[in-house]
């Protein structure tokens, strides 16, 4: 854990509101980018982040100082992002049902060709991330975009280090298939 984190958490537990604000200031930027990478849009990322901090401040007593504060906050965020995805999937299923009922049978659109411009490529990458399974997306984002070590990632998910290694290997193989147009 970072040297100042333990003291911040102790102060926040004692009701020091300034400590909670410091936690927001220290971690919100990195957590926002993590949230965005998981959910793919700004509105959901903000919701996920708000719920993460709410959950964290409500559950401070449950924080065991064995893990770092960053790991603990990331763990909460992953759960909130998963809830966001489930909610989105339910809404999507409901609107798809409504759409199928109202239309007289449409054709499936062919998959889009990879976009040529740089901006197009960056958008493809974000979309590709959203197409991965949650397990794969989470480990890839934590490793490649948040720079966490395998131990830290294992701490986020509460799984053995070997599991992180396996998931990363499978996630990368999946990304290789989906991004092959951009790879050597």
């Amino acid at each position, binding site marked *: 854990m970072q040297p100042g984190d333990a003291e911040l958490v102790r102060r926040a537990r004692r009701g020091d509101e300034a400590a909670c604000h410091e936690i927001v200031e220290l971690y*919100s930027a990195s957590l926002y980018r993590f949230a965005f990478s998981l959910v793919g849009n700004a509105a959901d990322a903000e919701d996920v982040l708000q719920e993460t901090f709410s959950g964290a401040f409500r559950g401070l007593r449950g924080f065991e100082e064995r893990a770092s504060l960053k790991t603990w906050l990331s763990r909460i965020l992953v759960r909130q992002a998963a809830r966001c995805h489930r909610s989105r999937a339910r809404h999507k299923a409901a609107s798809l049902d409504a759409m199928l009922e109202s239309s007289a049978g449409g054709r499936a659109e062919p998959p889009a060709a990879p976009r040529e411009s740089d901006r197009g490529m960056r958008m493809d990458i974000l979309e590709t991330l959203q197409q991965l399974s949650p397990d794969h997306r989470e480990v890839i984002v934590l490793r490649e975009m948040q720079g966490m070590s395998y131990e830290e990632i294992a701490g986020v998910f509460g799984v053995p280090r070997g599991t992180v290694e396996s998931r990363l290997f499978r996630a990368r193989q999946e990304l290789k298939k989906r991004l092959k147009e951009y790879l050597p």
Partner: protein
Amino acid sequence: METCERMRQAGAYRDGELATPDRLSFESHLAGCAACKAELAQLSAISRLLTTAQVPYMTRGLVERLHENVPSVRERGVLKLAESLIAAAAVITVACGGWLWQGASGGELSGANEAAWVRAAVTLNVESAVSEAQQLTQWMADGLALEKDNE
């Protein structure tokens, strides 16, 4: 594409996560394995692609909204306690109200009138209980804070 049974180690090698003996062994293997070299090149390319993904930085406005939603830790504790007291007060009030009325009316009321009286009694009593419970809870929290300050 060529494959090699040690390709699985390429990711951990690139991430700097192999223990020293494994790392040295893999490096030695890499010198003579085209498949693992190609795998490493592709993993590096994926990594570069991911860093170019358009993940925006958060706005100052969002930071301010996050700060606005940091509740006073004491307020949260007071509200939780107030909710519990309100729930308890509502249950007790409804039970006592029903008992008193049955006693006052000599036992029997028509079903519709009884239901209407219950609704009115619950509404009136819960509303006053909200205000009283909040006041009581704040008084208790102030008292606890004072004791803590004096420790």
